[in-house]
């Protein structure tokens, strides 16, 4: 019964860590509720929820700052926080773009970056951007803090590298250097508030006619948000152009593993991912 689930609402990390240290069976962390409240209401996995740790009002996790070329985004920064942030617009404008596309206002006001990361859906809108950006996640708990590269955080379908007594604290992202770009596109059924069918993010710069520092990640085309290393390798050091883009598209097709589901077919996702890749590369 939903009414039987105990909730501990905390206001500081110390209080949260004290709850985590007790290792209650079936502990789930609640942030803005845009995913978990839907799952609870639909009774998805309800029997596995023994206790809710409500961290929504832990204000020390709600921040967005740019300092010395590093953008730090607290786990409880909402999409509204991201799209209003001058630091995000200066350091990584794609993160403001995705925040504006992730849902409508009511979702942007409650959904958090940390929730998107920890829910770990292969369709999570921010995840390709975080991976392509080269984000590092800082996680913490009663045993201390550690750092995990974004592409190593998503270990299997909806499974993360977080231990049972750990919280995501923040993402740290290297700001774009002069000449660098990070471009992103999500394909859904409508512009506002739709779950994506395929999404792709590309970070790179073109130096003396050659791609450098290429990082590419894709959503909805594998059990996890996927760093596309073969596609990166196909582009790195070569020049932009139709032949290079075709080679990159072939590499992408070889490393993604889309499935048929109720939202799209695998064949559709393959074609869209390739089209979006070529479209994004043409922007360089």
């Amino acid at each position, binding site marked *: 019964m939903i009414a039987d689930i*105990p909730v501990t609402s905390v206001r500081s990390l110390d209080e949260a860590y004290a709850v985590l240290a007790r290792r209650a069976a079936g502990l789930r962390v609640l942030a803005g509720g845009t995913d978990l*409240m839907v799952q609870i209401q*639909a009774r998805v996995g309800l029997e596995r929820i023994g206790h809710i740790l409500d961290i929504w009002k832990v204000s020390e996790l709600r921040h967005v700052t740019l300092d010395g070329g590093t953008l730090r985004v607290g786990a409880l920064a909402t999409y509204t926080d991201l799209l209003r942030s001058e630091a995000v617009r200066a350091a990584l404008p794609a993160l403001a773009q995705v925040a504006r596309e992730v849902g*409508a206002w*009511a979702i942007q006001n409650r959904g958090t970056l940390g929730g998107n990361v920890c829910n770990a859906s292969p369709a999570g809108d921010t995840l390709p951007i975080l991976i392509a950006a080269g984000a590092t996640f800082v996680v913490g708990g009663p045993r201390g803090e550690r750092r995990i590269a974004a592409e190593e955080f998503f270990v299997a379908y909806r499974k993360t590298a977080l231990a049972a007594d750990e919280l995501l604290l923040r993402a740290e992202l290297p700001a774009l250097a002069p000449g660098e770009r990070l471009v992103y596109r999500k394909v859904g059924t409508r512009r*506002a*508030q739709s779950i994506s069918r395929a999404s792709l993010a590309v970070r790179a710069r073109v130096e003396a006619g050659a791609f450098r520092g290429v990082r590419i990640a894709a959503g909805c085309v594998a059990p996890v948000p996927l760093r596309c290393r073969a596609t990166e390798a196909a582009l790195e050091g070569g020049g932009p152009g139709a032949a290079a883009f075709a080679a990159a598209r072939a590499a992408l097709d070889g490393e993604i593993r889309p499935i048929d589901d109720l939202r799209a077919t695998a064949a559709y996702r393959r074609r869209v991912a390739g089209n979006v890749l070529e479209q994004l590369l043409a922007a360089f």
Partner: protein
Amino acid sequence: MSATLELSLTVNGETRTATVAPLARLLDVLREAFGLTGTKEGCGEGECGACSVILDGELVNACLVPASQAQGAVVTTVEGLAARDGTPSPLQQAFLECGGAQCGICTPGMLVAGQRFLDGGAPATDAAVREAIAGNLCRCTGYAKIVDSIQRAAATPSPPPGERAGVRGPGDR
């Protein structure tokens, strides 16, 4: 075992209390504990906006807010839009004049989302209004008249603060 929460919050300018489950949805608290049935349940999963309310100045879906997170909050529902004497707000008047309501199920959410847009003070261009109500679905598809209504209200002087039953949300977006 039953988890309970002594909930206290401000709804449309009045302090309200209830003993509820901490994961009870704000939507159910408003409708069942407080009898404020203007807020509707549509999809129950944050897609349709029928349950839109303003929580501490920001638009939210009341179906996704657990009671534990509404503790001490300031909430405006559709019942809080009219003046205390029952006079419709400029936005409600505009919905009446422009035919902004058809079957009515989306209307409370549209009014609340529209009011939050007006409170922000941004110019009421077509694109801006449509973005503001992008999370509110009208299955009669009467969007054109809803947009007209919000734009007409934007061109109408607002009542001074304090005359509306609800509490004005702050700031721009």
